């Protein structure tokens, strides 16, 4: 018994890695379809966007890079589909240097999405009219304050190199004060800057989608209703995909939703490991105390 306890307490970490790997890989190959339902934080963000009038402009800041792609990128895709289905007009930008390529890839995938008959889902969308992709601009807070004055001065050209001052969208919506909603999808601490320098300054509602690491940091802002909605990590994104009906739109299980089975299995394994390790620790300690008593 004692040798088994000692062996289990000193188990090779590679065995644990292998179990984690299996817990992730197996559900991806053989989906378990574990049910989950949207939480209030995610539903609040979704409901806010749903409540916007057709034609309203939503500023989407894609402040994430490849390192957090599984948690954040599917959220951008779901949000864009939701915007285009509701005839909202997104202005997309990024304030992180590794963001422009991903944001462009996400936008393209949505613009090129097709229905079962092979027709484009959104065939009539025109850049500069129904949406705009501004790309990356360094400066963080300076950019936020800049677009508070004027989009076209801060971004004289969009990502494609076309002059923004000639685009109908920016004639109608010249500055941040004219957009209806701000949505920051972030893997870095930028939501804490979007709040004071953009949302609070221009008195605009704002929601945040962030990595799971950051959620605890942003809950106080959600509790104070400064962030109207909070989409946290892959789980939050999967809930948003469920609300948006991404499975019907894409006609396949969307990425974050597909990851939920694996996420659940790994969590069960980690919780069990913690419980077992603690029980073994106390058993081992009892053995050691007994040894000390017997000399």
């Amino acid at each position: 018994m004692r040798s088994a306890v000692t062996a289990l307490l000193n188990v090779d970490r590679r065995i644990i890695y292998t179990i984690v790997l299996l817990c992730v890989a197996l559900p991806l190959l053989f989906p378990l379809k574990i049910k989950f339902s949207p939480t209030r934080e995610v539903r609040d963000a979704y409901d806010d966007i749903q409540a916007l009038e057709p034609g309203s402009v939503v500023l989407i800041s894609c402040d994430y890079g490849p390192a957090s792609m599984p948690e954040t990128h599917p959220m951008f895709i779901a949000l864009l589909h939701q915007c285009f289905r509701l005839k909202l007009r997104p202005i997309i930008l990024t304030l992180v240097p590794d963001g422009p390529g991903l944001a462009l890839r996400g936008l393209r995938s949505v613009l090129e999405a097709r229905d079962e008959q092979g027709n484009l889902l959104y065939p009539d969308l025109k850049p500069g009219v129904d949406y705009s992709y501004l790309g990356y601009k360094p400066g963080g807070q300076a950019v936020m304050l800049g677009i508070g004055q004027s989009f076209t001065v801060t971004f004289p050209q969009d990502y494609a190199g076309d002059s923004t001052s000639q685009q109908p969208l920016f004639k109608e919506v010249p500055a941040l004060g004219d957009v209806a909603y701000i949505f920051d999808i972030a893997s870095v601490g930028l939501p804490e800057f979007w709040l004071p320098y953009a949302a609070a300054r221009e008195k605009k509602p704002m929601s945040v989608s962030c990595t799971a690491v950051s959620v605890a940091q942003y809950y106080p802002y959600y509790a104070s209703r400064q962030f109207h909605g909070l989409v946290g990590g892959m789980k939050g994104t999967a809930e948003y995909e469920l609300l948006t009906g991404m499975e019907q739109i894409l006609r396949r299980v969307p990425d974050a939703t597909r990851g939920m089975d694996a996420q659940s299995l790994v969590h069960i394994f980690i919780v069990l490991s913690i419980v077992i390790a603690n029980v073994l620790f106390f058993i081992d300690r009892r053995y050691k105390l007994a040894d000390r008593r017997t000399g």
Partner: protein
Amino acid sequence: MSHAGLPIGEIIGFWASAAMTLIILSFIYKDNPVYKFGEHLFLGTALGYSWCICYYNDIYPNAIGPLFPRHGEPRNYLVLIPIVLAIFIMLRMVPSLAHLSRMSFAVLIGGYAGLAVPAVIMANFLPQITSTMGALGPDWATAINRLVLLIGVFTTLIFFFFSLEHRGVVGRISRVGVLFIMVGFGASFGYTVMARVSLLIGRLQFLIQDWVMRAILGRG
């Protein structure tokens, strides 16, 4: 075109990404020369990418472009001021001229403090205090939540109040604060585990769906 109508460039991209993923994951087994190669390749690529992004989005449009315009626009000599200030920061590497960098930092700190102080007070400080001190209602559940929040904030602040020795009543209150801090750390740790697992899921999704299914088997 090749498997499942994928362009050959995309297939090469899938193979390169898959190879890099496996090379980096090989560190889980143990440190090895292939991992070192992957690590250095990543650092080099990331640095090169950052330099290009920095040059085309920052240095050229804000410094070189206005001084040497391409399309016959007038030169903007005002950009010489930030350029000189930027050079002063670089001079920290020259001990005899390092003091010049103070001027640049004074401008930076003064500017950012001026921007940040009112914004942070109006958007972070006051609303957070108001939210914490909110009325105990409207229902029992909300009232209990707010009471717990208030006790958590108060006891945690007492823990970080070092002007009084943590003994007696103050000591007991600060110990309650420690419990709240531990719960906070636990929640953060749980979320961190979730985030790291998500990254592994993302990589395995890529390996299974894109690399194996699309690039190798030519499905989907």
